[in-house]
C-alpha cells in the first residue's frame, strides 16, 4: 500500500512538473483578455524588485499601469485590440539599486537607478554597473521565450517609489505616480515608429511619420491635417497651439526639421499624442493585427448545387466606441444594404458558374485621415461555384413558362428576322447543340403539333 501511495504521489508530481515547469518559480497572469494571442497585441509586464510577499501588490501595480496607458488616446479607443499579461518573478529584496546613495538590493533583473551617472535613469544589465547580459536583459528574453513568445510590448515595473525609468529596447518604469509617462512615450517609438520631436544635440535625425524636412505645403506628409489658413511653417504662437501645422524643431534638431503640432507626447511628457501621432499609432495596430478577426466558413472555395445557399460570416474587431464598417461584394459589385457581419448567398441569385464573394471591413475612425496603404481596410473572400441550377424551361423561348406556338414564332423571328434572342439562349436551343437555328424550330414544331420529343434540357434550362 505504501508503494502504491508513493507511486501515485510521484506520478502526480511528474504530471504537474511536466506541464507547469515554471509554476514554482515564475508565474504569468493574464490581466486583460480580448482574444487569442496571435490575433491581439500582447503587452507583457515584468516584475522587478517585488519579493514573494509582494506578488499581489505587483498584480495591482501592473493593472494600474495598464489602466493608465489605456486612459490615453488612441490606446483607450482600441483597448479591445490588446491583451495584457503580468509575469511575476520574485526578487530576494524589494526595490532597486541606488548607487549614489550606496543602496544595493538583490533583485531578479539587477535593476539600478543612477545609470550612466544619471540619477533617474533606471536600467538593467548590460549597463555601466554590470555588463553581463545574462543578469538583466538575458533574463527578460528567456522569460518572454518561455512564458509569452508572442509578446509585442514589454514593460518592466520596478518596485521603487522614487521617480525613474527609461525607454529603449525595454520600457522601464518605477512606481512613482508620474513615472509611467515614459512608457507611454516609448510606445510611440516601439509601436508607431514615431520619432522624437525634441531638440537634443548630436541625435540622429530621420524622416518619420511625425518629422520632416519638407516645407512645401503640398508635399507635407501630414498635409491633410493642415488647414489652408494655417501658415507654413507655423509660428509657435497661442493662435496655432491647438492646430496641426508645420512647427520648426523636431528629430533632435532645433531648426531645419519640423513637427506637426506645437506640443505632443513625442515632444514632452504629460501631453496627449497629437493628431498625426495618434493617426500613426492607429495605423500601426493594423500592421500587427487584422480588422477581420475571423470568418466562417474559412476563406476559400464553396460549392453550391441547384438551389443551395450558404451563410458567410465575419467577425470584425470592435473598438471601444465605434464599429468598423462592413460591405459585402459579389463579383466586385457592392450589394446594397449588405453591411452586417453575416451574408447569405443563394445560388439562384448568382447563377451557374464561378463567383467571387468578398467582405470588406474598414475602420472609418475620424482619427485617421491619411491611409494611402489602406491599412485600415481588410477583406476576406470566397470563391463560390454554382452548378446544376435550373432557372429556365427548355424550349420556353419567350419565357412565359409554356412551350407552344408563341415560342415557335419567337424562334422564327430570331432566326429569320433578327428578332431578340431567348434569354438565356438555351431556352431557344431545343436540340441542345449550343446554337439556335432552323433545326430548333423544326424540333419545337414536332413537339407542339406532332407529339414529338420535348425540348432537350441543357445548362440552366433544366426545369
Amino acid at each position: 500500500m505504501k508503494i502504491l501511495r508513493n507511486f501515485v504521489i510521484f506520478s502526480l508530481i511528474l504530471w504537474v512538473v511536466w506541464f507547469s515547469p515554471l509554476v514554482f518559480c515564475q508565474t504569468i497572469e493574464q490581466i486583460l483578455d480580448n482574444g487569442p494571442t496571435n490575433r491581439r497585441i500582447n503587452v507583457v509586464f515584468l516584475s522587478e524588485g517585488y519579493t514573494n510577499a509582494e506578488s499581489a501588490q505587483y498584480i495591482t501595480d501592473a493593472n494600474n499601469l495598464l489602466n493608465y496607458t489605456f486612459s490615453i488616446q488612441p490606446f483607450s479607443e482600441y483597448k479591445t485590440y490588446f491583451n495584457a499579461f503580468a509575469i511575476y518573478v520574485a526578487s530576494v529584496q524589494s526595490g532597486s539599486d541606488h548607487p549614489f546613495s550606496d543602496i544595493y538590493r538583490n533583485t531578479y533583473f539587477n535593476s539600478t537607478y543612477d545609470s550612466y551617472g544619471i540619477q533617474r535613469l533606471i536600467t538593467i544589465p548590460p549597463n555601466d554597473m554590470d555588463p553581463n547580459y545574462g543578469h538583466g536583459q538575458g533574463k527578460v528574453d528567456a522569460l518572454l521565450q518561455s512564458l509569452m513568445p508572442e509578446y509585442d510590448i514589454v514593460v518592466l515595473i520596478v518596485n521603487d517609489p522614487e521617480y525613474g525609468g527609461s525607454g529603449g529596447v525595454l520600457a522601464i518604469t518605477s512606481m512613482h505616480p508620474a513615472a509611467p509617462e515614459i512608457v507611454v512615450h516609448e510606445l510611440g517609438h516601439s509601436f508607431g515608429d514615431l520619432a522624437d520631436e525634441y531638440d537634443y544635440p548630436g541625435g540622429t535625425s530621420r524622416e518619420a511619420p511625425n518629422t520632416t524636412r519638407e516645407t512645401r505645403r503640398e508635399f507635407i506628409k501630414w498635409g491633410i491635417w493642415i488647414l489652408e489658413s494655417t501658415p507654413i511653417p507655423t509660428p509657435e504662437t497661442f493662435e496655432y497651439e491647438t492646430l496641426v501645422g508645420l512647427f520648426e524643431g523636431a528629430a533632435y534638431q532645433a531648426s531645419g526639421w519640423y513637427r506637426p503640432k506645437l506640443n505632443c507626447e513625442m515632444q514632452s511628457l504629460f501631453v496627449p499624442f497629437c493628431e498625426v501621432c495618434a493617426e500613426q499609432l492607429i495605423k500601426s495596430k493594423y500592421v500587427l493585427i487584422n480588422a477581420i478577426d475571423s470568418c466562417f466558413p474559412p476563406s476559400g472555395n464553396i460549392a453550391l448545387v441547384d438551389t443551395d445557399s450558404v451563410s458567410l460570416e465575419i467577425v470584425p474587431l470592435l473598438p471601444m466606441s465605434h464599429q468598423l464598417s462592413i460591405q459585402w461584394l459579389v463579383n466586385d459589385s457592392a450589394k446594397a444594404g449588405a453591411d452586417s457581419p453575416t451574408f447569405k448567398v443563394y445560388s439562384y441569385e448568382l447563377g451557374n458558374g464561378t463567383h467571387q464573394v468578398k467582405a470588406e471591413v474598414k475602420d472609418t475612425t475620424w482619427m485617421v485621415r491619411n491611409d494611402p496603404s489602406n491599412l485600415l481596410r481588410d477583406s476576406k473572400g470566397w470563391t463560390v461555384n454554382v452548378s446544376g441550377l435550373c432557372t429556365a424551361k427548355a424550349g420556353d423561348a419567350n419565357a412565359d413558362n409554356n412551350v407552344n406556338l408563341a415560342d415557335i414564332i419567337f424562334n422564327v423571328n430570331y432566326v429569320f428576322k433578327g428578332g431578340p434572342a431567348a434569354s438565356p439562349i438555351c431556352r431557344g436551343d431545343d436540340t441542345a447543340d449550343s446554337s439556335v437555328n432552323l433545326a430548333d424550330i423544326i424540333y419545337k414544331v414536332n413537339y407542339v403539333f406532332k407529339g414529338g420529343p420535348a425540348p432537350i434540357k441543357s445548362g440552366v434550362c433544366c426545369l
Partner: protein
Amino acid sequence: MVKSKFARVLSLAILSLFLLSLYALAAAEKNQSKILFLHLKFKDNTITLVKTTIRPGVVKPMLPPKDSDFLYYEVSSSSGVLLWKGGIKDPSFVRYEYEDPDQPGKLKVKEIKLEEAEFTLRIPYNPEFQLIEFYKSVPSNDNKKQSAERKSLGTIKLQPKE
C-alpha cells in the same frame, strides 16, 4: 490481493493518462505555428550564434525598417532560396530616454555604444531554414552609384531542431 490488483490498475491508468497527454501535446504542437528565437552576439562587426530555441506561436508582421542604424538579415534554404528577411535596430547602439530633472516633462537621451551586444531575434520558424546572413546597409563608396551597399556581418548556419 484485491488491494494489490487495484494498485496495479490505478498505476497503469495514471501512467497511460500521462503518456496519452504527452502524445496529445506532441500532436498538437506538430500542427502549430512556431517561432524561432536566435540568441546572438554582436562583436567586432560580426554576429555569432549563441543558441536557438523554438517555441509555439506566431510572429506578427512588423513595419519595414527605415532607420540607418538597422541591421538586416536574410534567411535562406539550402538551395539558396530566400525564405525570410527583416531588420532589427543595431543592438550595440543603446538609446535610453529619461525625463530632464531640470525641466519637468522634457526628455533627454543617453546613447551608449556597446563593444559587445547580446540580443534575441525572433522569426517565424521554417524547417527549411539553413542560413542566415546579417548585413548593414552602408553608403556606396562608388561615387557613380546612388544606392547603398551591403556590408556583411556574418553568415550563420542554422540547424534548428524541434
